[in-house]
């Protein structure tokens, strides 16, 4: 009985390693090849490079115009995070605290947005009318808009856990609604706000459909679109493509390592806790 358990335990552990290997091998492949010469990378294997050609990264930054797109991605992500976190938390707070009939309906419609698909073509028309098509501002507003439903949903359930007595006490002391929110409620929301910010950052960084539709001018492209375009032009030079992929994914991996707890809790919160 005991030996069977030990064997079972070893088996499960081996299985876990095999699984992890299946998931990580393609990523290692990219990393390894990003240091190879063009001819060595053409074989697309996992062999350790004979010569480490670090200059691939410099070449890619230059040819792929990565500096510009990096700045673009940063602008889109940072501003969307700031805008969406602010508007979503203000809305979620009021919707959660004052559950009058109108607010309940508003909340329901916003949360329906989690599943609602975007009508990209009609959206083009709206953006033309607002004259924000092909602009950085337009994309930032769009990213904030599409992530509003999920963020409101996450913050809403968190707000309901904060006792209302706090609000009452502050109101009796003559605290204005804005001050109450910004100096008392917002600090209490910190855990969920960190989750919201990390997820919004990652989603904005990774997304590329909106720029594909609404940013014709390549000087406005984020990193994802720049790397894809680079891939189209230099698909024979896998070493460069790999270096480009590594550079584009690096911010995501860093944010993931730093914020893993928040990401996992945020992405699973809606599912497990309801």
């Amino acid at each position, binding site marked *: 009985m005991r030996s069977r358990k030990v064997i079972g335990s070893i088996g*499960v*552990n081996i*299985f*876990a390693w095999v*699984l992890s290997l*299946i*998931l990580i091998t393609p*990523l290692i*492949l990219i990393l390894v090849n990003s240091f190879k010469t063009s001819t060595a990378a*053409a074989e*697309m*294997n*996992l062999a350790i490079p004979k010569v480490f050609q670090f200059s691939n990264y410099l070449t890619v930054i230059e040819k792929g115009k990565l500096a510009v797109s990096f700045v673009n991605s940063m602008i889109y992500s940072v501003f969307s995070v700031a805008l969406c976190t602010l*508007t*979503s938390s*203000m*809305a979620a*707070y009021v919707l959660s605290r004052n559950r*009058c009939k109108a607010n309940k309906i508003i909340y*329901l*419609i*916003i*949360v*329906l*947005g989690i*599943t*609602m*698909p*975007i*009508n*990209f*073509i*009609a959206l083009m*028309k*709206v953006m033309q009318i607002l004259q924000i098509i092909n602009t950085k501002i337009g994309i930032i*507003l*769009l990213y904030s*808009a*599409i992530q*509003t439903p999920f963020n*409101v949903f996450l913050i809403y359930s968190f707000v309901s856990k904060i006792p209302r007595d706090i*609000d009452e006490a502050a109101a009796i002391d003559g605290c204005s*609604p804005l001050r*109450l929110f910004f100096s008392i409620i917002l600090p209490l929301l910190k855990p969920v706000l960190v989750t919201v910010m990390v997820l919004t950052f990652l989603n904005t960084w*990774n997304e*590329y*459909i909106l720029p594909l539709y609404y940013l014709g001018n390549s000087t406005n492209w984020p990193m*994802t679109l720049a*790397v894809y375009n680079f*891939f189209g032009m230099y698909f024979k030079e*896998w070493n460069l493509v*790999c270096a480009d*992929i590594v550079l584009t994914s690096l911010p*995501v991996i860093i944010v993931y390592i730093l914020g*893993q707890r928040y990401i996992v809790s945020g992405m699973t919160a*809606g*599912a*497990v*806790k*309801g």
Partner: protein
Amino acid sequence: MKKSKMYPAYFLIGTLLLFGVLYLLPSILGIGYSFTDWSAYSDEVNFLGFNHMFDNYLKAFSDEKYIRYIGNTLLFTFVTTIVKDVISLALAVLLIRRIKLLNFHRAVLFIPAVLSALIVGMIFRSVLNPEVGLLNSFLRQLGIEGPQWLTNPDIAFWSVMAVDTWKGMGYIMTIFIAGLMSISPTYYEAADIDGAGGWQKFRWITMPMLMPAVTVVTVLNVIYGLRVFDIVYALTNGGPGYATEVLYTGIFKEFGYGKFAMGTTLSTIMFVVMVIVGYFLIRSMSRNEVEE
């Protein structure tokens, strides 16, 4: 103090503007545009007339191309939902026990979920390359000649679904692990005392306790599947032919061709389906809340 004064409505302005103008409005306008001849080739947008107002919809459900888009989207949703559910659940059940470095494995399995689908697509265009790609090189060492994963029309769509499963599996598994960890071990101890076997414990304790998580994971997968674009665009862009074309990549093509009315019709079909799915999602979630 009155609630409406303490929690003033102007807090909602930012969200209502963003969501209302850039999310809701296009969907509603889109319904209107689906009854017109809107295209890039004419500045005028004309109503199709009462006798022909559903022409775009009739086309969407009769033209072979569009039926293919819809069929592929449904196939993708059906297959990836079931495969991800089953594999992820099996992995979660296996991995939760007696694993050293569980957190390490969980972290690794989650990585694909945070990478951009575009990046994953490019990575797998290398891995699945028929001549030199990692997968076929590996198969060759076993003496098997692997197929043209992404360019053979009979196989391409299955390859896309497999890559998508690779990307999404870790995320779904993490939800299941969280669900499994919330089951109190006392149930299993009691079952042990009663002499229950592994399968019996899974069937009568794990499954019922995990049902809420299964429901939500299924709904998440269905929503994701119906709206899929990224991974298909990055791997095959709908090709070869229309073999891997789904609704959203199809809509993007209509947009590219300037056939705006047709694109917005396909979007509206999707909109109606998703609002219904969304209604059930919210219902299932509010039921969980009650159970809490």
